[in-house]
């Protein structure tokens, strides 16, 4: 197959899901993000901690929208967020104020490390990037960012995924733990 021929695609897109799947995906995401966001906005506002980061939106797609995916399994969810968070913080601390370089290095290295540790979880890339882009609060957390919010938030979303995804007959979660 030559280079340009490869760009034509070889197969059809997978079938869509039925309405019950849509409902359970919606419910899981509502409860999972709801739990993390509630803690973030209602329990922690006065503290220096935070619980909600943008990458959890992406994790919700996988955990509740595609729970069969290897990318959505507990090993990937937890490993991907925690390892990427550590890499993101390290890149920021070593390379600031060269934020363009820190951003690129953080995401690229996060992907490499997730591959090597079999923890590939796409939202991990965002978790690494957020450590560089920051907010002042995130910068102040330092390496604690890997535990709060990255690890803890992922744990809460995992618990909701276990509860919701095993409720309907047509779903089970996880496919594997480790």
């Amino acid at each position, binding site marked *: 197959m030559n280079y340009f021929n490869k760009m034509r695609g070889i197969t059809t897109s*997978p*079938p869509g*899901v039925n309405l019950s*799947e849509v409902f359970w995906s919606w419910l899981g995401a509502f409860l999972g993000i709801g739990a993390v966001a509630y803690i973030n906005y209602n329990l922690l506002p006065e503290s220096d901690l935070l619980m909600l980061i943008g990458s959890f939106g992406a994790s919700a797609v996988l955990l509740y929208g595609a729970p*069969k995916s290897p990318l959505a399994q507990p090993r990937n969810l937890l490993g991907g967020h925690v390892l990427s968070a550590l890499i993101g913080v390290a890149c920021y601390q070593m390379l600031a104020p060269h934020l363009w370089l820190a951003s690129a290095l953080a995401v690229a290295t996060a992907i490499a490390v997730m591959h090597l540790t079999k923890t590939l979880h796409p939202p991990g890339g965002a978790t690494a990037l957020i450590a560089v882009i920051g907010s002042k609060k995130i910068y102040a957390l330092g390496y604690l960012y890997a535990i709060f919010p990255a690890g803890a938030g992922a744990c809460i979303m995992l618990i909701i995924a276990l509860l919701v995804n095993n409720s309907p007959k047509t779903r089970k979660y996880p496919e594997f733990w480790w």
Partner: protein
Amino acid sequence: MSETNRPRLDSAELLSDEDVYAAMKKIPGYLDISAGDFKELYLLAYQHAETRLYNSLRVADIMTRQVITALSTTPLAEAAALMARHHITGLPVVQEDGTVVGILSEQDFFRNMGDGHQTSCMALIADSLVSGGCFALSIRGHTAEEIMTTPAITVSENALLHDVGKLMREKRINRVPVTDNKMRLLGILTRSDLMHAFPERATP
């Protein structure tokens, strides 16, 4: 040959994109894989399973147990008629107690008919048409043990198909009698047994 005319899915390569798509629709929930990837995966898994089976199956698993045989004293006319009736090109020659003493095949007939120079059916036909004679006369009245190939190459029923396939290829034989350790006949394994068990492998 087979009882029904229903097409059989002998080869995993017959799997169409439509089949994969229909199967994916039966599984509720979003599958994080494209139909193309699934098909590729399926084909590789199928090949792997086939190789694994081929490398672990033993002769006893696929051999034919109802063997058509000739006795060493069977007249060749009778043996030839037997082979013709059952559409086979060779059979084991046994003694009364079931001990295998040789193999009688088309090749043995060809070798002993005519003046010994013709080694195929077509060579015999060609020479018969030229000379107008009947080459079968030279072996008329003889018995199986007089022209059979002996000793026969045999295998045990515990032999791996992988090894027997290799043996048959190397010795250029199409069938091999399966015997116990006293050379008593238990069954026969033919090239077509191997081909039916593994349609993907054109030759065993």
